[in-house]
């Protein structure tokens, strides 16, 4: 018994370094943001002594920030929808396909994750820019006579973000579909169900946990993305994450920046919880 207690204590040494790191450099810092959001804005310094709720009042009284929060949430929602529509067929093909291309296809899906986000966003600026690939092609074909606005607007941000986070939608859905017994599909087929019916009545409901995980990941990641909207949106269109970083780094308003960041995090979290509730309920009924 005593030896066992000693062993248990010794095993704690294994988790200690990582555990302490997470506690001191993740848990405490997140609490620091909350505290910071109630600090008094400083003059020349990031913050002054004392506490206030003024930062939150500032957020709610300025329609600029409310509109921007709404727009950011919309961008997140549209990206999630686009990723779902594009990602589901690919996930299905990867999970059920057995051709020799499968390995390559899987590599292609993983490839964006191995290339830095700055490089991927840069790639999109080359494709979408006013002098970019698409506009050059359109002009040389005589379809348009001046560049179509694909960058420095919401459309460009949505296209690039959908690309950046598509793997995070595909991978969870793929593993969910892989977990479905293929004999269910053959059974349905032998009973005369069409391909569409099989997808709607069997694959979709059973892969719901994967869809849910993919949607939540994509939504949260696109809300908090910084590099892509900063490079594609330029100074014309800003998402909330870009404004937060600008507020902190360029103008040094730490308390107000914290309040902005927390408001975005809280609204995002509320939407995620509502989404999780709704999707679970809907599929229980069906």
């Amino acid at each position, binding site marked *: 018994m005593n030896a066992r207690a000693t062993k248990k204590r010794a095993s704690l040494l294994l*988790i200690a370094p*990582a555990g302490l790191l997470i506690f001191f450099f993740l848990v405490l*810092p997140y609490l620091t943001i909350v505290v910071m959001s109630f600090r008094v804005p400083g003059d020349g310094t990031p913050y002054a002594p004392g506490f206030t709720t003024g930062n939150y009042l500032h957020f709610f009284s300025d329609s600029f920030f409310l509109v921007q929060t709404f727009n950011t949430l919309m961008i997140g929602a549209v990206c999630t929808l686009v990723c779902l529509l594009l990602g589901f067929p*690919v996930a299905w*093909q990867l999970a059920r396909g057995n051709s020799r291309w499968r390995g390559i*296809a899987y590599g292609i899906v993983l490839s964006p994750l191995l290339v830095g986000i*700055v490089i991927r966003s840069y*790639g999109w600026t080359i494709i979408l820019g006013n002098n970019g690939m698409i506009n050059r092609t359109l002009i040389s074909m005589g379809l348009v006579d001046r560049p179509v606005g694909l960058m420095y607007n919401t459309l460009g941000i949505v296209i690039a973000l959908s*690309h950046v986070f598509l793997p995070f939608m595909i991978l969870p859905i793929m593993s969910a579909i892989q977990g479905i017994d293929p004999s269910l599909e053959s059974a349905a087929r032998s009973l005369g169900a069409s391909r569409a019916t099989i997808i709607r009545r069997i694959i979709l409901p059973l892969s719901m946990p994967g869809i849910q995980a993919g949607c939540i990941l994509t939504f949260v990641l696109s809300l908090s993305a910084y590099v892509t909207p900063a490079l594609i949106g330029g100074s014309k269109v800003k998402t909330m994450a870009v404004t937060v970083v600008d507020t902190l780094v360029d103008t040094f308003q730490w308390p107000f920046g*914290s309040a902005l960041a927390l408001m975005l995090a809280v609204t995002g979290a509320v939407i995620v919880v509502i989404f999780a509730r709704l999707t679970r309920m809907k599929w229980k009924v069906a």
Partner: protein
Amino acid sequence: MSKTFFTIFCLLIYIFLLAPIVVVVLASFNAGAFLTFPPQGLSFRWYVVFFHNEVFWRAIKTSFWIAGVTTVISCIIGTMAAIYHVQFAGKLKETVRVAMMAPLLLPEVLTAIALLFFVYTIGIGTQTVLPMIIGHVLITLPFVFINVSASLETYDVSWTMAARSLGAGPFTRFRRIMLPLIKPGVIGGALFAFIISFDVFTISFMLKSVGMSTLPLQLYDYLRTNFTPEAAAVSSLSVFLTLVVVVVTEKFLGLKIHRF
């Protein structure tokens, strides 16, 4: 008919996934002074410009040593945590998993802000490279943890027992029995840690010390004001280095990646 349509649809998505990366590599061979399509002839001109650019080389060196240090630290503490998680955690297993995965699940920008405030509050500040390394270790830890945990799940504890009954101490048991068996997981985790640390932007952006720059930071800085294909040459080299690291690791060390 519908099957052909489906295949074409998927093919288009694969093209979409590869497009920006391929375009960057193509653009790097552009002979013209600006990024234009179609490229004005092929040339290595921008690679030559980049090879003479001191600033980018310094950034690449910085990125390499930061990623190296991060990988070593992350691998050691991540492997320890994974061993605890799989073999000793008991009822705490799920709690440990959530805590270790937290840096991956929380938005990177929030984590970066939180760390920035924290290092200033406790007085370290960003004068040294320490905050950035802490941030990188934090963000790479989940990848090591998940890979090592996955290979430990198939590790049979009776092997450790057998070694112990033959008189092997804990370190010998780890080095001679467990480590060789979980090696693919550790290497997979190390690979991911290195690549993630090499590429991570937001954490580095918030926590960098004055005058210090990693490759993604330097590239971002450059892209805000310049439009020459030099950035494409730098990016292509970075993509190529990643590819080399992945292929070499797979060929010589054996690789098993568990990501989700």
